[in-house]
């Protein structure tokens, strides 16, 4: 049962590392599977580390019900092979020889140790596209470095650039650089890895051969910071300093019941905002006469705006401002987002059910393709669930061959 998608008919093999929190390779192939490709996730006999990450529907650890694993590996089939054994390795290499894509989410030293560079694989499969996602890439002076999400977010420049707008609640100057408590760099590198893989597929339609994609998680992060890099490239201002924002207000402020973003960088927004604040006398001051002036004189403007935000709740501010087209919004909890009429009406979340009937949701797919709509058509595999099926279907293995490969 394969899903009709843009990549229907294409075969993908994934091998990911035994490091927890390295989600890039798994997410990359999840996205290729979402697009209809036939994805085979190869796991070591001990199973993918995210089978142990949770959360678990009943609160009890169960390798088949770890939330992070379920999320990363739906729309795939699963094969378990001991690729360190000769039989297992031979079977793995045959799968790779039969595939259109090999996706590796690993340290670069592991890619080399396993001999999975394209030059070693292309003789058996000249059309193969090998997508490697490693912490610092396969080449360059730091290519042997180990790394995870924290290292990539840090070395890619994003930790230093957080918080991303002037924050009147805390004092970013006194705080260490910050990572989000999610595997952000991995998801990001996963999307980019899928993007690079499909770009390579389009190249292949032009000149017929496969290629080796060498994606660095450090660069995955740096590549999504064009605005911060623009400041470094065009001006001397450093991130984390208010002058980087150039035009104001664009700030995160406390309000009566929480925190709110107030953004009025366009003149029309600013005039509307001042209308909302009953056009105080200070609104006419020369020092606040343009976005650039307001940035230059932010220290004077900030307490004046705080008077207004502290007199309202976040919801009031959002309502008043959005009615006039000003981009303001309060800090939502995860629950407020999940339960919002907007998310519900758009049907974004996927309804799941645990082994004991526990109901929960996972994020759906953020892209709606009219002709090839996404669906969760296959739950994440149990360990080794499709080993026999795949070795038979892809490779035509006999019972003896299955046994030699250590397949169970």
């Amino acid at each position, binding site marked *: 049962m394969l899903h009709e998608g843009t990549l229907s008919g294409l075969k993908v093999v994934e091998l990911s590392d035994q490091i927890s929190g390295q989600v890039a390779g798994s997410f990359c192939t999840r996205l290729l599977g979402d697009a209809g490709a036939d994805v085979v996730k190869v796991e070591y006999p001990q199973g993918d580390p995210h089978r142990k990450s949770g959360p678990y529907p009943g609160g009890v650890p169960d390798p088949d019900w770890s939330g992070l694993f379920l999320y990363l590996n739906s729309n795939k089939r699963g094969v378990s092979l001991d690729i360190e054994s000769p039989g297992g390795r031979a079977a793995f290499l045959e799968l790779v020889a039969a595939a259109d894509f090999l996706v590796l989410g690993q340290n670069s030293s592991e890619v080399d140790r396993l001999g999975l560079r394209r030059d070693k694989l292309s003789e058996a499969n000249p059309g193969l596209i090998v997508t490697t996602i490693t912490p610092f890439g396969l080449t360059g002076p730091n290519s042997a470095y180990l790394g995870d999400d924290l290292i990539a977010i840090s070395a890619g420049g994003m930790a230093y650039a957080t918080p991303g707008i002037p924050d009147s609640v805390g004092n970013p100057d006194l705080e260490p650089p910050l990572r*989000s408590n999610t595997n952000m760099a991995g998801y990001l590198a996963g999307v980019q890895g899928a993007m690079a893989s499909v770009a390579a597929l389009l190249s292949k339609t032009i000149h017929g051969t496969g290629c080796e994609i060498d994606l660095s998680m450090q660069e995955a992060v740096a590549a999504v910071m064009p605005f911060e890099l623009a400041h470094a490239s065009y001006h001397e201002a450093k991130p984390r300093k208010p002058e980087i924002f150039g035009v104001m207000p664009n700030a995160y402020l406390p309000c009566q019941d929480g925190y709110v973003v107030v953004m009025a960088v366009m003149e029309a927004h600013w005039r509307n905002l001042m209308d909302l604040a009953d056009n105080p006398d200070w609104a006419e001051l020369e020092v606040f006469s343009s976005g650039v002036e307001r940035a230059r004189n932010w220290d004077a403007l900030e307490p004046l705006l705080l008077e207004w935000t502290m007199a309202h709740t976040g919801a009031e501010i959002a309502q008043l401002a959005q009615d006039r087209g000003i981009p303001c919004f309060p800090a939502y909890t995860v629950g407020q987002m999940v339960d919002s009429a907007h998310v519900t009406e758009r049907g974004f979340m996927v309804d799941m059910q645990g082994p004991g009937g526990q109901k929960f949701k996972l994020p759906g797919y953020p892209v709606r393709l009219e002709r090839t709509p996404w669906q969760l058509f296959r739950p994440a595999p149990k360990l080794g669930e499709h080993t026999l099926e795949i070795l038979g279907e892809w490779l035509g293995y006999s019972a003896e061959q299955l046994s030699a490969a250590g397949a169970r």
Partner: protein
Amino acid sequence: MNALPLQGIRIADFGQIIAIPYTAQMLAWLGAEVVLIETEQRLTTRIWPPFAEAEPGVNRSGGFNMVNSSKLSCTLNLRDPEGVELAKQIILVSDVVVENYSSGTMERMGLGYQDVRSLRPDVIYLSLGAFGRTGPMKDLVGFHSVINLFSGLASVTGHKGSHPRIMGGLFPDAFSGCYCVLALLEALYHRANTGEGQHIEVAMTEALATLLPEAIMEYTLDGTEPERVGNHHKEKAPHNVFRCQGEENWVAVSVEDDAQFQAMAHVSGNPGWADDVRFSTPEARLKHQDELEPLIQQWVARLQVEDVVQKLQNAGVPAGPVLDSDQVLSDPHMIERGFVQFPDHSVVGPRPLGAFPWAVDGGQPGVARSAPLFGEHNVKVLQELLQVPDVEFKRLMENGVIA
């Protein structure tokens, strides 16, 4: 170099500010001809800082030039019906339309998907919205900070016991942009196989929510909201940044297992850490990380970031520098890999930018060329491509239809 994957593909780019301009820029780097349709009446990043040498000018903005390189600029007044008609003519010779105006804007101009599709049935048309194009919040306006706050990302970002924070980097724009590029490449592949175009809709808020499976699962199981934990990790310790010599120099350290911790104890000259029962297992280190971190801080305080990284990496411990944007663009490793490119620009000269996060067969998969000057390609687009005659072109210029 091999042929670029999008050679022969033309894109009509109605992108605003960052997200769609970034999307279309990546397509341009991959070989597409991207026609950026700009409107003088609605300039944003072109008139926002940072400017080269802090001198304002529509061709001097880093915020514009870093997400619009390699494109053609055509300046049309989209408030004038004749300007809209020219935009429609550009769409008719394009394979892909991308836009992130407010919901309904393209439709009001007569450039919505249904209008375009009736004229060009195989068009691929992508609309990106902060909240998407449907649902009760579709008309809300939101830039990166609003997306951060709605999606729940901010609620998992923050120091321990502190309030939600907004990630750096205008992350929602570029991350949504990556999903858009992926979708467009898939749609182009689909069109090559079937001849079918299609409409694609993306909500930035939903793109961000794809980062939060655990938090969403936990909330929907039993109402648990995530706690903010700074740089800590639920399975690894130590897992944090530490201040090295100098004012703003930090090193990130992430220890995965006991072997790595013992190696760190050894190279830091603190073999006693390895024998300390408080730090002997991952669980023990997680429990006692508030006691462990000051010890590591003390060790690195008088060392250079690079020394700490080298020592730890040589011992097999994941570590890395906390780089700022200047350091990213001057990083010898990323420069050698070709990530940092230096497209020349006739007004501001060569400026470094971050290009592809991946290499193909050892080289960059595409080339970043200069960002266009305002209206630089009006003649090329309108006269060479659309065959607008000289006299008509002059009239349109005089009437302000072409800026």
